[in-house]
């Protein structure tokens, strides 16, 4: 038993070259020396454990923020039994998803600076010292792969450029997030002592104005974070929309001055005519014409459309409160509502409105937007609009409602 533990420990710290047969070992040493002499030399005195530590700490903030906000969005869209998403505060989803995308964009300069600061480690020699070293390098490989993939796929998604991703974006982005956050936790655990030493109050200062240069690099990265945020965050923060030079959306551009995630043409939906009927299945099923819908009591509310892609914009919606429709068909309290669209395909042709949102008096089956009839791209003849819910769950071109217990 003792001998086995001993052998394990030796394997853990053994030099892999020493394990090779002698003739191979000799040749390996010669080749190793040849390679070592040809490795690049990195002269930049800007790199230091301290700079790397600060950048690492910044990423240890942005990654969990993206993870948590992304997970919230995932849970709202695929709610497990224990998860109840409230309909208040109204702006909450707009904020969490806006923060998700803005933080993801802000991560670009920090992540690249972090990789720059440790780039020479890529060429460390020997490449593998022992088993522990090999595992540590592999975990870093997983971390960097997942981190770069997360940021890249997120950015490709908001730019709607899908061919470089030969997989379904949302599913891959979700599972990669678990890998990235897990690998990050392992990395933090491994590097914690190094970071503590590097950031101790009296570090061994390399001198020669190093502190000044370090501040220079960190402020440049900070400036980069500021600029990429400033030119894109206007897609969700209205007062900054004039600075919105490079965001995929501007909150006032679109039909009826509101952006559209999927247009009618893209959804394959054409304008409903006189034959349109809204079917409502419940204890007392009803079928309503558009005229009958319009004749029901109407309400106007100011609610945002908040997209998973990080943009959001407020509209003034007029329509029939969902509560009223539920009462019309005798739905019991606490019911949910399955909402189906005229859209024939697509992931979001139907969605379930949670009980909290069915109860909320501000949830509407909207017929009008900003004082005019709903544009076809916004879901004519009617769409769901509800507080604190992702836009993809606010079904457009509604033609069928089913009361669920």
């Amino acid at each position, binding site marked *: 038993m003792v001998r086995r533990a001993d052998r394990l420990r030796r394997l853990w710290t053994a030099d892999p070259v020493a394990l090779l047969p002698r003739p191979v070992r000799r040749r390996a040493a010669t080749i190793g020396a040849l390679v070592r002499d040809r490795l690049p030399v990195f002269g*930049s005195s800007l790199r230091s454990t301290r700079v790397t530590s600060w950048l690492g700490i910044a990423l240890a903030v942005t990654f969990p923020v993206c993870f948590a906000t992304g997970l919230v969005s995932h849970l709202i869209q695929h709610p497990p039994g224990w998860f109840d998403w409230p309909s208040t505060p109204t702006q909450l989803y707009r904020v969490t998803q806006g923060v998700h995308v803005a933080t993801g964009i802000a991560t*670009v*300069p920090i992540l*690249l*600076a972090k*990789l*720059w600061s440790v*780039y020479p480690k*890529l060429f460390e020699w020997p490449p593998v010292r022992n088993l522990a070293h090999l595992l540590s390098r592999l975990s870093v490989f*997983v971390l*960097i*792969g997942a981190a*770069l*993939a997360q940021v*890249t*796929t997120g950015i*490709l998604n908001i*730019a*709607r*450029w899908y*061919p*470089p*991703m*030969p*997989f*379904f974006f949302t*599913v*891959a982005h979700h*599972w*990669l997030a*678990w*890998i990235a956050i*897990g*690998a*990050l*936790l392992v*990395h*933090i*655990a491994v590097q*914690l002592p190094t970071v503590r030493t590097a950031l101790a109050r009296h570090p061994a200062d390399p001198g020669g104005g190093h502190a000044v240069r370090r501040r*220079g*690099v960190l402020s440049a990265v900070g*400036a*980069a974070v500021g*600029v*990429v945020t400033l*030119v*894109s965050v206007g897609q969700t923060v209205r007062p900054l929309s004039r600075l919105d*030079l*490079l965001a*995929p*959306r501007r909150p006032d*551009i*679109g039909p009826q001055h509101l*952006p*559209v*995630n*999927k*247009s009618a043409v*893209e959804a394959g939906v054409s304008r409903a005519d006189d034959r349109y009927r809204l079917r409502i299945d419940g204890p007392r099923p009803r079928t309503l014409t558009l005229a009958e819908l319009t004749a029901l009591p109407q309400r106007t509310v100011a609610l945002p459309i908040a997209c998973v892609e990080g943009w959001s914009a407020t509209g003034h919606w007029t329509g029939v409160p969902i509560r009223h429709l539920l009462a019309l068909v005798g739905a019991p309290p606490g019911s949910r509502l399955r909402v189906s669209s005229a859209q024939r395909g697509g992931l979001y042709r139907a969605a379930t409105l949670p009980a909290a949102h069915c109860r909320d008096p501000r949830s509407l089956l909207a017929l009008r937007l900003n004082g005019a009839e709903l544009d076809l791209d916004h879901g004519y003849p009617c769409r769901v609009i509800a507080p604190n819910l992702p836009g993809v769950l606010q079904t457009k071109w509604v033609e069928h409602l089913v009361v669920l217990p």
Partner: protein
Amino acid sequence: MRAVRAALVALGLAGVGYGALGLATESRPVSVGLFAVVAILGHDLLLAPLALLVAVLARRVVPADLYPVVRGGLIVTGAVVLAFLPTVLGFGHRTTNPSALPLDYPLGLAVTLAAVWLVTAALAVLRRRHRRTDASAPSRPRAKP
């Protein structure tokens, strides 16, 4: 400390395992893995050497005292270009949805970078002036007595 680190490792490995399992069962793990490997190689073999090359060239061209300021401008430029490259290239633009990617992105990029370099130039001027007053300052007290 040891216990915290051990707990972090255990939690982290559980996260990686859960993600890998989900990726394997619900997504296309080979494609996603390949994407991640290409991302790493793209950074290590293309982006990083390119950035180092730019730094080496800039260091040759730019006066030594202004290099830190110019380096800052280069860092911001690189971040803006990379973060918005897919948007600027515009391959995701569709005429079927005019409100998606509605702006003139090459123009937006040009305006953004112009502003970045205007600020960089202003900082460079300030630095030169600062240096000059710094250099002349020590001579004054000596002249007084």
